[in-house]
């Protein structure tokens, strides 16, 4: 029972972190669509990153895929926290894929675009935290 409680807390925290990532990704998606962050401004690394060709995949903003992913993770983590343990494996798979995507995006910012945007770094932090939390929760619930 104590073990179960610990797992529930881990998944709850994961759901909360996913919410932060979701808010961040929605903000960036809307910014991309309305062009708020895409113009170049005097003080910015964001416009370099968000205005680059790596900010879109097949014409859709990367942030939109992020928002969908974070919402999925939030939903699954919430279900897992309430005892739907079957979703745990799916959640681990999705979070792992997100973590790999994050590594790729960080690589692009550091070595290709040579600029970092703070919203993208926030998202990287959120995904990394999620990966750690979900990995621990998966181990603990075995």
């Amino acid at each position, binding site marked *: 029972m104590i073990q179960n409680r610990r797992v529930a807390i881990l998944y709850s925290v994961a759901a909360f972190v996913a*919410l932060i990532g*979701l*808010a961040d990704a*929605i*903000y960036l*998606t*809307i*910014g991309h*669509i*309305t*062009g*708020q962050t*895409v*113009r*170049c*401004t*005097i*003080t*910015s*690394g964001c*416009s*370099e990153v968000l*205005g*680059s060709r790596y900010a879109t995949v097949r014409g859709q903003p990367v942030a939109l895929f992020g*928002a969908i992913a974070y*919402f999925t993770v*939030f*939903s699954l983590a*919430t*279900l897992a*926290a*309430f005892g*739907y343990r079957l979703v745990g494996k799916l959640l681990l798979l999705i979070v792992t894929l997100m973590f790999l995507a994050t590594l790729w995006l960080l690589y692009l910012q550091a070595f290709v675009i040579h*600029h970092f945007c703070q919203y993208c770094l926030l998202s990287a932090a959120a995904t990394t935290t999620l990966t750690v939390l979900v990995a621990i929760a998966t181990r603990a619930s075995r």
Partner: protein
Amino acid sequence: MKRFFPFAIIVIVLAGALAAGWYWWKAAHKSPASEPSNSGIPAVPTSAPAGAQPQHVRGSETAPVTLEEFGDFECPSCGLFYPVLKTIEGAYGSRLRVIFREFPLTTPHPHALAAAHAAEAAGLQGRFWEMHDLLYENQEAWAKAFDVRPIFEGYASKLGLDVERFKQDQTSEAVDNRIFLDGLRAHSFGVQGTPTIYINGRGIPYEEFRTVEALRASIDKALAK
């Protein structure tokens, strides 16, 4: 009851996410139209400095629509806007006049100022627009280079300019002054980013000129007035 609880939370969060998206969308759309002072693209003050003279103009003097661009040759969004404007210029012909103003953003773009100098130096030999086009068309190539001088000299020679004079003009006071005067005009308008576009003296938000369709709509609106 408890079984449905997580699903209720998920639905609430989905609703909240959509509401937040809608709110940001509204906020982004509202600010330029109804509150010009907050949009970053304020209205043109009547006593604005004229900018560098003679200005770089493309198109007919008697055109009913004048589009004034504050641009930075190294700015990626300006590079994306370049083909949009080209297409529109072709489509509108003598009904559209385009003015280019230098607004190099030197903080994010290390070669922006050098590019502005190169374009203005070409301008002193009457080939500003040709250099303007070359700079935008090859933006990705030179923006990544360490030393842009040989690249720009290559463009000058490609355009048939007197390269020795071009090299001297790049660092001349005449070129410095032109960029400074365009900057004065930009600052009086409150320009903060690039590309910033004015159509018949009215600043328009980015989403109203980022695509050919959007820019067409903005120009048609000005023509209808």
